Structures are given as C-alpha cells and as structure tokens.
C-alpha cells in the first residue's frame, strides 16, 4: 500500500505535466494555453516535492511534538520544498506576464486564436 501511495503521487504529477503539454500544443485559445501551462507547472512542482518525500515521516518543522525525535529519521527532506516554494510564486508571476502579453497580442489581431498570430506559427 505504501508503494502504491508513493507511486500514485508520481503518476498524478506526470499525468498533469503531460496533460499540460498536450493542452499547450493543441489548444487554440491563448488563455486556455496559459491554463494548460499552469497545469504543467503544478505537475512539475508536485514531482519536485515528491522526490523529497518519504512516507510515514513528518513535516520538517520542529515543535514540542518532535522534540523527542531524531530529526534525520523523523522528517522529510526540506530542500525540494524550499525550491518549490519560490518556484510557485515565480510561476504565477510568469503566468501574469504571459496573460498580459497574450492579451496585447490578441488585441492586435482581434481574436484570441493563436493561429492568427503569424509570428508564433510553427
């Protein structure tokens, strides 16, 4: 059961990354592409935190309940969490920039369809 728990979270994260990639590649509405980007962002963050997760341990914050425990055997790895914490906030700022630029670009062409933006053709 614990193994299943461990791998199911990884599966969720991978699935979200792939769904986000699929959405970015195939959707046409530019806001929806931003939404798919956010989904992929969430998936990557989940995967990063998952690499530091060890089942049956507690969060890396000392308080009265953890005073008797040996920290290295009772807590999960704080390093990936610290990286993801900043990554989330940066991600939302980048998404804001994405949306603003997308809105300006779509006002030039008069529609939200990404195929109308000739500079972005591939």
């Amino acid at each position: 059961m614990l193994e299943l728990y461990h791998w199911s979270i990884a599966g969720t994260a991978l699935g979200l990354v792939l769904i986000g990639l699929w959405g970015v590649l195939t959707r046409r509405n530019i806001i929806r592409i931003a939404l798919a980007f956010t989904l992929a962002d969430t998936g990557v963050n989940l995967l990063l935190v998952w690499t530091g997760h060890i089942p049956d341990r507690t969060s890396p914050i000392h308080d009265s309940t953890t005073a008797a425990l040996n920290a290295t055997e009772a807590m999960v790895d704080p390093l990936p969490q610290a990286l993801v914490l900043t990554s989330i906030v940066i991600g939302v700022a980048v998404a804001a920039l994405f949306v603003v630029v997308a809105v300006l670009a779509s006002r030039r062409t008069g529609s939200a369809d990404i195929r109308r933006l000739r500079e972005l053709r591939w």
Partner: protein
Amino acid sequence: MIRSIFGLILVLVLGAIMVAVVPDIEYSEEIHGVGLHYTSQGMQETGSANLVTAVIVAYRGLDTLGEVVVLFCASTSVVLILSLYPLSLKVSRPSFIVAQTSRLLPAPILLLGLYLIAHSHLSPGGGFPGGAVIASAFLLVMLGGTGVPGSSRNLAAVESLAGLSFGLLGFWGVMKLGQFLNNLVLGTGTPGSLVSAGLIPLISLVIGIKVASELSSVFAAFRYKGGH
C-alpha cells in the same frame, strides 16, 4: 490535424522518457546529500525551528535574493506594459453586502498574513505565502469597489524600500562577519521562541512586504472602471 498528430507524438515521447526515468529516482528510506546536513544541523546552526525557512532564508539566502529579483522583473514588466497600453476592465457595481464585507474583512486577513510572516521561523508560512495573503486582502478591497484604492500609489515606493532593505540586511553581514547575508549577526537565540533565528524574521518580513506590494501592484494595474 497534423498539429494534433505531431503533438500526440511529442506527448507520447515525453511520457515515455518520463516513465523510463522517474522510477530511477530512488524509493529511499533515507535523506541523501546536503539535505541530511540541513535536517540534522539546521536548527542548531540557524536557530530556526522551521527547516524550510532556514533553507530558503539562511542557507540559500542569496538564491532567494535572485528569485525576488526575478519576481520583481516579472511584476514590473506587467505594470510597465499595462501603463503603456492601459486596458481598463469594466465591472458592475458591487452589491451592498459585498461592499460592506470588503470593509469588514481586510483587517483579520491582514492580521493572518502578518502572522504567517512573523512566525515564518516557527510554523508553516513565511514571506511568500504571507505576502500573497496580504495581496489578497488588497484584492478584497478592490473587489468591494469599482476603482483602485488610493493607497496603491505608494506601492512602488514600499516595494523599492523593501528591496533596498534586503540588500542592506545582507551588507550588515558583510560588515560584521565578512559574509553577505550572514544569518548570525543577531545570534541564534533559543529555537522555538519568537525572538530567535537571527536575521530570519527580518528577512521574511522584507520578502513578505516585497511580494505583497508586487502582487498588489499587479492587481492595481488590472484597473477597473465603474459602470453597470
């Protein structure tokens, strides 16, 4: 059509690579590498009970300074673009109940954000979530009206002051101990009490103010126009 097929191929290839690679990340029962040092020594070295905050602010403080600069660039770009091309958004008049709520609730939400920031070294939270909560209180004030609140004019000044004081706190470490952003200029204190962990609470406060003012100025740049 061709786009979909190409996209499908790309997604499948990436999926195959990930499925092949991810199981090689060891299913370990142990903490490896530098995380082991942070977990075992973190509380003694930095005085912070919250090890995540210890990593963010003390061990990797310089990286966090970089991240804050990235955040600053992104939010400044948004504000700059929207001040060059003003796109005002028409919203309807708020109902009486929502308007009253937006005067009632910001105070406790601000207190919650300040609590998250001030207790960053003791409990979950810290500069980033606390700043986001304070920015949400600002958003609530905006939702209860049809204009931008007058206090948004000072946001740029507040943000620059916060950035400046981050740098100054760093140089304090250089002056006293010869190392940029050294946490130990104030001593560690007893872990678990409010006044402990050296510079960590101050730097969290600075980060919180900076994040809050940046997100608030993004919200204020999405300006509203009254109307029905």
